[in-house]
Every structure is written in C-alpha cells, then in structure tokens.
C-alpha cells in the first residue's frame, strides 16, 4: 500500500508536467485513473450530444470564471489597504446592475437552445428496431428480449474473496458479469426499464443512457450503438448494500453474430424445458443448489445459513425450511409480502428453485431427507 501511495505521489508530480502519464502501468492493481478526468464521448448519438453540451457548458463557465475571477483577483491585489489606497464610498449603480442581470440572462438563453435540442434527442424513442425489457433486482439485472421469448439474469461475477482482499483483484474488478446483455450493432434498441423491488438506475455511460428502474413504472430509453464491443455501466440509484455490486455489461455484436447468439439461446431454452420433467438425484440437486444459494441467497441469509440477526432470518434450523416442501416452495415463488424476501419465480428457473430448496433442507444442521424435484415446483406454479 505504501508502494501504491508512493506511485500515486510520483504520478501526481508527472501530471503536473505532462498530460499523458503515469500510473496506468501494466499491473492493473496499480489502478490508474489520474488521466480519467472527463466524461467519455461514448458510442451513441445521445452520448455524443450529452458530451457536446457538457463541453459547451464547461467552456462557457470557464470563460465567465476567467473574467469574474480575473477581475476579483485584480481588485484583491490593487485595492489592498496595505498599498495605501483610500476606500471609495459608492454603493449603487443602476446601469451595471441592470447589465449584470440582463447579460447573464442572454447567455442562459443561448445555452438553453443546444440544451433543448439535446434533450429532444434523448426522448426520441420512436421507431425502435428491437425492444429489451430491463428489470432491476436487489442486486442484479434481468434482461428480456421482447418478442423472442429470451430472458436471463445478469449478475456480478467478482468473488467476495476479491472484494474482501483475500485474493488479488482482477483486471475487471466489479465490472464483470456472468451473462452480459447482448444487442446488435447499428440497430435502434429501445430499453423498457422497470424495477422489481426498490429503485435502481440503469446507466451505461458510453450509451448516454441512465434511467431509474422504478417498481410499477415503465420508462423508455434508447441507443443505437455504432461500434461492436463490450460496454460497462453501473447501478446509480442507492438500492441497498449490494448497490456497488450490480454492474451492467453490454456486449454489442455484429448483426449476424447477434442472430446466431439468439438462436443459441433459444436452443438452450428448449433443452432446459426437456430437463424439467426429469427426476434429479440428490447429488445433482445438492451441487446445483449450492451454486444457486451462493449467488442468489447468501448475500442476505449468509453462506452459513445463519442470516443476520434482526434483518435476515437464519435458514439453518428454520421451521419453514425444514417443514413441508410446499410451504418452502411458496416462500420462494411468492416471496414474503412487505419484506425484502422477494419472489424468485421470475428470477430462478424451476430447476434452480428445486435445487436450492433441496440444498437448504439437507445442509448445515438441516436434514430433511426427501427430494424436491423441479416438476414439483412447476406443478406448484401452475396450480396457483
């Protein structure tokens, strides 16, 4: 750490001399970022107009600042008592007072014009080529390709060991997910954004899209990305303790690749449907269940199943967990109203739900022994 502080100090020095600098070495843990001073220009029309009006405003403010502060510093220097000046006694001048009301007002009108046209761009959501539904969950995103029947969860992949410093931080620390959103290049993609539990906000700086994901409300934003590649964003509305840990990664593919990917996804879905009816073994369910538990439940109920007293109940020894399977399935499918225990019906597949239930019933101090099958979950769902 001392080493880093020293490197930082040196790169600060080099920043003074040159603008292309320093700390962005090869070692990613050396950080860098001293050169990241400005808003990215981005890869969509909206991000570019946002960038342009940002720069315009910045230069206008700089110009006003130079004039105002320049005059102020002159006054501070020239009208010091220590130079022997006598204070004047005037305290009004209608002319200048009118001038410095009217001139700023005119500058504002001048600013308002590009500001308005930029905003019209942001709101131009008509005539989209495809629609993606984006849903914010505590603490992950769900993407649905509307009309294609494809829907998946996107969760951060950075491990808790990296976060808590037991393992070195990788190059993509906090910026990696298990399944990025995939969209085609040069197509007008409309995002229909909503929230499931609390308010989140879906932000991809390079697209110039930031939109709050509010439960019960759908709003639209759009992007036509001009370059294929990986784009990273973040959740920007405080949504609880996992707020920094629900990054957004968007993979923009050439149209052909996108279609291939879509076809692959559809095949996967069909394959999955065929496994739902199969009888799963104890071992299969336990290993799948453990994975699901770590990703979807441990954040609240903790890896050891003991929860956090006062907020998240222990599942270890819980009577619901060890009770009849149906009661347990009901908690996962319907959630618990008025608490942060949400419904997992749309987030997890039937297989995942069955696996995690089976896992919890047979780990830690719990040992129920029976087997909960995916088909039980499906039956429960259809019976509702």
């Amino acid at each position: 750490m001392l080493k880093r502080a020293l490197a930082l100090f040196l790169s600060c020095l080099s920043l003074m001399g040159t603008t292309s600098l320093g700390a962005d070495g090869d070692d990613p843990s050396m950080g860098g970022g001293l050169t990241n001073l400005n808003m990215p220009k981005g890869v969509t029309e909206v991000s570019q107009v946002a960038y342009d009006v940002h720069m315009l405003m910045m230069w206008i403010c700089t110009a006003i600042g130079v004039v105002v502060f320049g005059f102020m510093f002159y006054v501070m220097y020239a009208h010091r008592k220590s130079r022997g000046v006598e204070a004047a006694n005037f305290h009004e001048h209608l002319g200048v007072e009118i001038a410095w009301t009217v001139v700023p007002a005119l500058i504002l009108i001048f600013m308002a014009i590009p500001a308005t046209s930029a905003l019209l761009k942001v709101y131009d959501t008509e005539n989209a080529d495809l629609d993606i539904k984006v849903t914010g969950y505590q603490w992950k995103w769900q993407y649905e390709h509307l009309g294609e029947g494809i829907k998946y969860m996107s969760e951060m992949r950075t491990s808790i060991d990296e976060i808590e410093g037991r393992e070195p931080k990788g190059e993509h620390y906090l910026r990696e997910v298990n399944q990025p959103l995939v969209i085609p290049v040069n197509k007008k993609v409309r995002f229909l954004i909503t929230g499931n539990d609390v308010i989140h906000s879906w932000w991809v700086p390079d697209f110039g899209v930031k939109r709050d994901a509010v439960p019960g409300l759908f709003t639209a934003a759009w992007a036509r990305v001009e370059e294929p590649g990986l784009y990273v964003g973040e959740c920007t509305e405080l949504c609880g303790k996992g707020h920094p840990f629900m990054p957004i990664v968007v993979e923009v593919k050439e149209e052909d690749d996108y279609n291939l990917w879509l076809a692959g996804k559809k095949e996967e879905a069909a394959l999955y449907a065929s496994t739902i009816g199969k009888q799963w073994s104890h071992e299969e369910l336990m290993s799948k269940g453990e994975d699901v538990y770590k990703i979807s439940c441990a954040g609240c109920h903790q890896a050891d199943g003991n929860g956090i007293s006062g907020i998240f109940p222990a599942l270890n020894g819980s009577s619901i967990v060890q009770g009849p399977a149906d009661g347990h399935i009901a908690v996962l499918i319907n959630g618990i109203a008025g608490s942060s225990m949400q419904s997992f019906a749309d987030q997890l597949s039937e297989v995942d739900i069955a696996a995690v239930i089976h896992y919890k019933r047979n780990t830690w101090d719990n040992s129920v022994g029976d087997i909960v099958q995916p088909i039980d979950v499906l039956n429960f769902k259809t019976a509702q």
Partner: protein
Amino acid sequence: MAHGPAEGITRWLYTTNHKDIGTLYLWFSFAMFLTGGFFAMVIRAELFQPGVQLVQPEFFIQMTTMHGLVMVFGAIMPAFVGLANWMIPMMIGAPDMALPRMNNLSFWILPFAFAILISTLFMEGGGPNFGWTFYAPLSTTYAPDSVNYFIFAVHIMGASSIMGSINIIATVMNMRAPGMTYMKMPLFVWTWLITAFLLVAVMPVLAGAVTMMLMDINFGTSFFNAAGGGDPVLFQHVFWFFGHPEVYIIILPAFGVVSQIIPTFSRKPLFGYSSMVYATAAIAFLSFVVWAHHMFTVGMPIAGELYFMYATMLIAVPTGVKVFNWITTMYRGAITYETPMLFCIAFVILFTFGGFTGLMLSVAAADIQYHDTYFVVAHFHYVMVAGAVFSGTAAVYYWLPKWCGRMYDETMGKVQFWLAFIAFNITFMPQHFLGLAGMPRRYADYGLQFADWNMVSSVGAFLYGGAQILFLYNVVRTIMYGEPVKEAKVWEGAEGLEWLVPTPAPYHTFIRPPVVTSSAAGEDEWSISGATPHVAFKAAPGAG
C-alpha cells in the same frame, strides 16, 4: 436592574436569553459537525482503496446516510440558527427574541432528536441505510426497523426548525428599534427573514413525507408502494419539494454573513443593497419551482424536463447578481485580509465554482451523465461546505471577539484557513473527475480505474478533518486566553448596531432601544443612551 445569568447547569437548561441560546445552538452544531465529520472519515477511510476493508457495505451506507442527515440538520442548520439568535436582536436593536420561552424549547428538543437518530446505529438491524434523501420504497418496505425512530427524529427536528423560524419572523417584524426600517436592516437579518419563511413553508412538507412513510410501514397504506397502487416517484416529488428549498435554507443565511463581512474588511458599504434583498427574495421564490431537477432520470415527460431545466437555469441570474455585488463591494475598497475575510473570499470563489457546476447540472441532457455520480457530490460540497461551512467559520471568527471580549490569534486563524482551503480542494476537486469518469455516489467499493483519485480525495478529507480540530482549538484558546478586546467596534470598518454595544456584549443589550438621529450630511447616526453618539451607518444602506 440588568441581572446576570443564573449559576450552574440550570442557566443553560432554563435560559431564555438569546445569547445563551445562541451559544447553545453553536456548540451543539459544532458537536454535530464533529460527529458528522467522524462519519465522513469512516466513509473516506473505506474508500481510500478499492475493496471492502474497514466496514461492511451495509454499515457503509448507514454512514453515508447519517453523515448527510447529521451535517444538514444537525450541523449547518443549527449553526445559522445560533448565529441568528446571537446577532438578530443585536442587529435590529431588540432586547431579546420575541418568543424567548419557545426559543428555549426549540433548542432543547434538538439534542433529543439527534440522540434518537444516532442511537439507531446501535439498534438491531442497524440505522437508516437509505441515504439522506431516503427514497421509498428503500426507506419503507425495505427499511430496517429503526426507521420509525428516524421518522420520529425528523419530526422533532422539523418542530424545532418551525419554532425557530416563527421566532425569527416575529422578532424581525415586531422588535426592530424605532427607525430600523426594513430597508435599513443588515443583510444578515434580511436573508434570515426570508429563510424563516422558507422553513415555515417546507418543513411541514417534510413532515408530510415522513408521515406517509410511517403510514406505509405500520398502517398498511400504499402511498409509495407500487404493489398496492402507490407510486415511488410521488415520494421524490414530495421530498424535493422540501429538499430544494432546503438547500437554499442552508445557503441564504450564509449569503447574509458574507454580505456583513466583505464590506467590513473592504471598508466600503455593501454594493447594491436593495438588489441583494430582491435577489434573495427571487432565489427563495424560484427555489419552490425547480425541485424536479433532482429527478431528470426518473423518466418524466419531456415537457416536465424542459420546464424544470429552464426554471433551474434561471436561478443563476439572481445568484450571479449576488456574486457581482460582493466583488463590486471589494472594488475600490481598502481591503485587509483578516481570517474572516479570507474565509469570505474563499466562499465567493468556491461557491461560484459550485454555481457553475450547478448550471451544468441543470442541463438535463448532460445531467443524465452526471446524476448520482461523484460529480453531484462535488457540486453540493462546493456549495454546502465551501458555501455554508466556510461562511459559518468566517462568522465565528468575525463575531467571536464581540461575544467573549477576546481576540483570536490571527496567525493561527490564517493557518486554519489555508489548511481548510487547500484540504477542501484536494478532497472535492478530484470528485468532479471521478464523477465524470463514471463513479456513482453512495458506493462502498469501486472499480480499479477510480483508485487514484479516491486516494487523493481521502487524503484531503483527513487533512480537512484536521483543520476542524484546529478550529476548535482556536476557538477554545481564544475564549480562555485570547487577547482582551475593549473597543465596542472591534473591526475598523465594521458597521451596524452590534458594534455599538460594549465588548464583550453584556448579558442584556438594548434594554432601551438605540436612538437614531439624522446628521447634517443626511446620514443615520445611532446611539445608545448614555454613550456618545456613534456613527453606525456611514451611509444608510438603501437610502442613497
């Protein structure tokens, strides 16, 4: 006849004296300032490096929430109420506040409010963890149980603020000395009068917001619960209808302080007194009609976005008028740079800088990129810390000799100023870069590309914390060992009735109102009975 204060602790518990209550408010606010500052140190220590080191993310967001709440409601607002208590009666020639018993009450409920609020940190499930803006449903359906204590604390703070403001309004309207017409009142009194009206108007709205939360949480209503037909966005409208005027509640008294101090050390009357009054009123009015500029990303209809964008930009006009007036006050003055003046000059520069970023934020299309990033954090610290806190510090150095009859050590004052000024900029300037580069606010952890500027910012924050300890030291040292001051008019260029009363200000001042006569040159001359006439206003402000 004029009896002194009671002895012992009961002096402070039962006091109805505006100076005692002012002192209580000021010390309370400083204690809260250090408490909130401690929370900030926890935040910056955790953000010193990427990764989770010192505190868990859950506790981290409790810290950000508490920091914001304690600083806004516990440090800045009571500080200016304290200044108002001390100075307004002395500035308008009144013997005390109009409603002294209510004054006692409005102070003494505050420590309870904050004791309740801070105690939530030790409750099962933790303290409030939803940010100082406490957006529903994170603060309702998903809140820890302690949220009910938070709501109660906010109610008490609101009651305290409303009582305090009613008192100020009643005092200014009824207790001015004969001849102290509205347009002769010092600007500090004006800005507080307008602030008090803002407070009376919006604190009930805040109370409404938290009451709706209380109902949603405990009594099954669904104001903000989408599942029950409510609307989470409604919460934000209600909150910001309070919240935006609130930021002007914080800054207007600061404008008043600066408008007192700059003329003193420029040895020249305030330029554009009446336009200052009108600009303050204009800002106050506009502050009611711009609230949704905090909500540019919720997906309002475009007409709404455009309206709130234009209205917000408009605020720059009266704000600009104020800045120009201050600078023109200095123009052709005979300026000296004592500590209060240094803080005021830093105020003008840094506040204006924050105004520039405010103007940038008002452009909705660009705000989509800035919103909820560190750019916004930098913006409001430039206006609230370099604005309100710097001017509050200036006010303490400026009036301390009058309060306690002792002079602070100028060198130590300057050391504190430069430390605070430099550390402030090291802390918050990089946050602009972090925000533009994409770092969201209220993050307990961040990607590696943000590591370096965060480290710089944390170092600055620790230095800034140190500057506050130095401030405490300076004040305590002055009170105990400072050079005694005898002159009623402590500063050569000072104007106003508070400089007419002896130094240190006796326990009771203006038991008989000061008398104003008109000199041959048409200037107001104020005197207190028994003393030789003393020219308090060279040229009556606004009379010219």
